[in-house]
C-alpha cells in the first residue's frame, strides 16, 4: 500500500465524516442530533480523560468535577445573576483552571494508583460539596433553567444551531489537541509517561509539565461542561458523581486509551449503547457492565485495537504498557 494512496484514502474518509457530521441536522432526526450533541460534550470529557490516561499515563478521576464545575458557574452567574454570554463562560473556564491548578499542585506529587485515589478523592470532595451546599448550589436539586445564548440573532437554543456550534467547538478542540500532542510538549508528556526519571535527568521540569497537562485536560473537561449545561439546561451534583466519572473512564478504555481517536470513538459507542440498551431492557446497567467487563478482559486495547490487531499480529506493546500502568516494576 503506497503511502500517498493511504493518505488519499484517509483524506476521502475524513472529508466524508466531516461532511456527514456537518450535514447531520439536515438528514437525521432531531433526536439523533441531540444525541450527537451529547456525544460532543461527553467527547470533550473523554478527550480530557483520554489525554491524561493515554498521553501522560495518569488516570485521573477528577475530570467530571471540572465538567460539573463549569456548568455550575454558568448556572450561578448566568441563570441566577444574569451575567451575559461570553463573560460568564470565560469566568467558568477561569474557575476550572484555578481549581485544576490547586488540585494539580497537590495531586502531581503522587503517581499511579495513589494518584488515582487522590483524584478520586478530589472528585468526591467537589461532588459532596455540590450535594450538600443548598444555600448556593441548591444541593441535590442543582441549578435549572440554563439557556444557550442568542448571538447576533442566531438562537443557539435551537437543537440544530447548538449542534453546529458544538461541532465547531469540538473540531477546534480536536485540532488543537492533535497539535498539542504532536508538539514538543506532547512528546515530553509521552516521555514522562514512559520514564519520568529519565525525563528529569534530561532536565525537564517533570512536575510542572504534569501540572500543565492537568490544566489542559481540565480545560477540555470545562468546555465540555459548559456545552453540557447549555444542552441539558440543568446542572446537578450527579453531573460530577462517581458513577459518571467511572462511566467516562470506561468509555475511554472502550474506545482505546492509547489512540488519539479512542476517547471519541468510545463516547460514540457508549452513548449509543446507553440509548439503545435502555430502550430494550430495564436491566441496562447489567448489560453495560457486562460489556465493559468483556472489554477489559478480552479487548484491553479498546475497540480501535481490533484494527491494529489485524494490521500487526504481533502484539502492540504500547497497549499493554499504557493499559497496565506497570506499578513500580523493579529494574532487576
Amino acid at each position, binding site marked *: 500500500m503506497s503511502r500517498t494512496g493511504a493518505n488519499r484514502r484517509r483524506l476521502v474518509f475524513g472529508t466524508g465524516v466531516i461532511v456527514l457530521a456537518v450535514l447531520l441536522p439536515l438528514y437525521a432526526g432531531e433526536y439523533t442530533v441531540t444525541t450527537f450533541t451529547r456525544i460532543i460534550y461527553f467527547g470533550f470529557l473523554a478527550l480530557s480523560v483520554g489525554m491524561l490516561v493515554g498521553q501522560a499515563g495518569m*488516570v485521573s478521576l477528577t475530570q467530571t468535577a471540572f465538567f460539573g464545575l463549569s456548568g455550575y458557574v454558568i448556572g450561578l452567574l448566568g441563570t441566577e445573576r444574569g451575567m451575559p454570554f461570553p463573560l460568564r463562560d470565560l469566568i467558568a473556564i477561569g474557575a476550572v483552571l484555578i481549581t485544576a491548578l490547586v488540585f494539580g499542585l*497537590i495531586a502531581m*506529587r*503522587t503517581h*499511579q*494508583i*495513589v494518584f*488515582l*485515589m*487522590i483524584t*478520586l*478523592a*478530589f472528585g*468526591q*470532595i467537589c461532588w*459532596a*460539596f455540590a*450535594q*450538600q*451546599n*443548598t444555600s448556593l448550589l441548591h444541593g441535590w436539586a442543582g441549578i435549572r433553567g440554563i439557556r444557550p445564548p442568542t448571538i447576533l440573532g442566531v438562537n443557539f437554543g435551537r437543537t440544530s444551531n447548538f449542534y453546529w456550534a458544538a461541532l465547531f467547538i469540538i473540531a477546534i478542540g480536536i485540532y488543537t489537541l492533535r497539535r498539542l500532542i504532536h508538539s514538543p510538549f506532547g512528546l515530553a508528556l509521552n516521555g514522562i509517561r514512559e520514564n519520568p526519571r529519565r525525563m528529569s535527568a534530561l532536565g525537564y521540569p517533570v512536575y510542572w509539565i504534569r501540572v500543565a497537562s492537568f490544566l489542559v485536560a481540565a480545560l477540555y473537561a470545562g468546555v465540555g461542561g459548559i456545552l453540557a449545561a447549555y444542552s441539558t439546561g440543568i446542572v446537578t451534583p450527579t453531573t460530577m*458523581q*462517581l*458513577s459518571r466519572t*467511572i462511566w467516562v*473512564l*470506561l468509555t475511554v*478504555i472502550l474506545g482505546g486509551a492509547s489512540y488519539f481517536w479512542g476517547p471519541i470513538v468510545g463516547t460514540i459507542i457508549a452513548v449509543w449503547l446507553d440509548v439503545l440498551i435502555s430502550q430494550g431492557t*430495564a*436491566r441496562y*446497567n*447489567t448489560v*453495560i*457492565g*457486562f460489556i*465493559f*467487563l468483556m472489554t*477489559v*478482559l478480552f479487548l*484491553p486495547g479498546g475497540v480501535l485495537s481490533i484494527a491494529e490487531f489485524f494490521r500487526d499480529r504481533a502484539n502492540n506493546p504500547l497497549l499493554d504498557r499504557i*493499559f*497496565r*500502568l*506497570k*506499578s*513500580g516494576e*523493579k529494574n532487576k
Partner: protein
Amino acid sequence: MYTKFLILILNGLTQAAIFFVLGSGLTLAFGLMRVMNLSHGAFYLLGGYIGYSVVHATHNWPLALVAGSLSIALLGFLFERTMLVRVRGGDLPETLLTIALSMIIADVSLAIWGGHPLTLNLPAYLNPPIRILGITYPGFRFILMGLSVLIAFSLWLILYRTKLGASVRAGVDDRETASALGVNVDKIYSFVFALSALLVGVAGVLGGSYLQLSPGSDTTILTYSLVIIILGGMGSLLGTVVSSLILGQLLSFGLAYAPQYSYFLIFVPMGVVLAIRPQGLFGRQV
C-alpha cells in the same frame, strides 16, 4: 449536654466499628494485591441483601450473618479466580473489572430485592435497650462494637501470629521473592480477596441491621471505605483502626452540629493528610 456528648461519642464508636469492618478488608486486599476493589460497596449491599433474605425466611439472625458473609466470600473468591487473575499486575484493568462488576451487582440486586429500603430485623435478644450512665442506648450497637474489636483482634492474630499471615505479609513485601521461596502467592491472593469479601459481607449484614439497605448505598459505602483506607494508609490495619475512629467521631459530631455538611466533612481530614502525607497516616510509600 453531658448525655448528648455521651451519645455522640457512642455513635462515633458505632460508626467506627462498621467503618473498620468495611475498611479492613479493602485495605488488606489493596496492601497485598494492589487491587483497588471498587466493587466493595456492591459487595456490602449484596451481603446485606442476602442476609435480609435469610432473616426473612428463617428469622435467624446469626444464620443470616453467616450466610451473607460466606456467600460474598465465595463470590469474591470466584471473581478473583476467574476474572482478576486474568489481568493480574495491571492496576487499571483490575480496578476497571471491579467497577464493571459493581455495576452488574447493583443492578441485579435491584432486580431481585427491588428499590425499597430493607432492614434485617434484629431479634430482641440481640438488641436490648441498655441503660448506662443515664442514657438508653441500643444494645446491638454495643454488640457491633464488640464484634468489630473481635474482628480486629482476629485479623491481627491471623496476620501476625500465623504462618498464613506471614505469607501474606511476605507477599505484600515482595510477591516475586515469596513465590520463588515456595509461597503459593496465587493461593494467598485468592484467600485474601475472599477474606476481604467476607469482611465486607459481614459489614453488609451488620449495616443492614442497624441502618438499612437501599439501592445507591453501594456508592456511599464505597466512598466511605475509600476515605477510610486513604486516610489510614493503604494496606495498614492499624491505620484503618485509627482512621475509622477519627471518621466515626467526625461523622457523629458533624451530623449533630453541621448536618448539612456532615458528608462533606469526612473528606476534610483525608484532603489534609493527602496533601501532607500522600501515603496516609500509617501507609508505606507506594
